[in-house]
């Protein structure tokens, strides 16, 4: 306020029960998804990742960090850690173009059937602020969680920092 009036685009509603990945959800909302890869590396799992993926310390994991864009605006930074044993060769893909969700599903046959997510408040550090074109210390959602396949095995652990200016999280509950 005080700096003039402008019309903000409606927030993208990220439905947490969606069976789609980010790109598909954004497209279904009539918006244009985009991704910039910040890094994509094979690394050894540390204690925290090992626990989440239920693998021994030092297991090979694929670490992928992307800035997610909606209509060209950087809205979130998503970092995923995937158990490489489940998807050898995944590093060959260009995830600025291909949806990770589709590659896991159709190339590796990994189907996400359940997950636990936790959402809290954080503030952007210097790197995050630069990637999201915001001030350092700006408040944001912090969302983390583990995704499980149909056997109940965890295959992906993610940490997302998202700007509430552009994204709203939603769930819908129905009585059985």
């Amino acid at each position, binding site marked *: 306020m005080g700096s003039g009036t402008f019309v903000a685009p409606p927030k993208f509603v990220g439905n947490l029960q969606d069976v789609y990945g980010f790109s598909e959800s954004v497209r279904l909302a009539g918006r244009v998804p985009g991704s910039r890869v910040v890094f994509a590396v094979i690394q050894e799992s540390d204690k925290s990742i090992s626990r989440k993926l239920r693998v021994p310390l030092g297991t090979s994991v694929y670490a992928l960090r992307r800035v997610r864009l909606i209509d060209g605006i950087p809205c979130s930074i998503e970092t995923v850690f995937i158990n490489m044993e489940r998807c050898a060769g995944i590093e060959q893909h260009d995830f600025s173009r291909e949806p990770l969700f589709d590659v896991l599903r159709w190339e590796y046959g990994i189907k996400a059937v359940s997950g636990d997510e936790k959402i809290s408040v954080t503030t952007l550090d210097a790197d995050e602020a630069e990637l999201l074109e915001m001030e350092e210390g700006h408040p944001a959602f912090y969302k983390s969680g583990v995704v499980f396949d149909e056997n109940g095995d965890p295959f992906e652990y993610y940490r997302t920092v998202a700007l509430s200016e552009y994204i709203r999280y939603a769930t*819908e509950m129905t009585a059985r």
Partner: protein
Amino acid sequence: MANVDYKSPIYLQLREVVRSKIEEGEYPPGMAIPSENELSEMYGVNRLTVRNAVDALVNEGLLRRIQGKGAFVVGDRLERDLDSLSGFRQTIHERNAEPGTKVLTKMRRKAGGKYARIFGIGEDDDIFYIRRLNTANGDPVSVEHTFIPATKVPKLDGIDLGVFSLYEVYGFYGVSPVRAYETLDLVTLEARDARMLDVDPGQVVLLFTCYTYDKDDDVIEYTCSYTRGDKCSFTVHNRS
């Protein structure tokens, strides 16, 4: 409770009197029955007898006794509780924190434009507005604003929300939540709510918004809850 007659112990006879008044609706669900003193005077029996009669109904689950407040009629329960289903669940960071709720405001008011639209009612129709402060170990965690159309729960005025949860009250009045749509945003607080939550004005908090629908797809409750991000987070469990 079979065959209580005039020869039965007096506390059993009183128990059946109170039971039939509950069943006939003279003592409606959510309301307090007369105090022990009043019952003792009404029927000319001593207080110990009253206490035994009321105890029996408390044990049956027909009454709920609250220290210092009296005995309240428990109505029908909801078979399904949306709380038990998936959706955002608030988790307090501190371990073993004792949760508490304080009702700050409970009033009947005109819906006005915004809530008339949300509930699909007239601007001059009545709604209930409830403002509650939720605490953990006495520290403020969230301020919750709840709006309910008066047509759905007409007797809400008389019900002590320190005794019954809103879900229990819905059950008493046959209002059955079947669906809820919930969202999370980050917002800054206005001065009054900031003071209530003991945070600096301008500090960002989690805004949890929930629309609850009944089987006719009417909105029966609209809730906005401003929650301190340093005190809690929200979790969701998904299964497709």
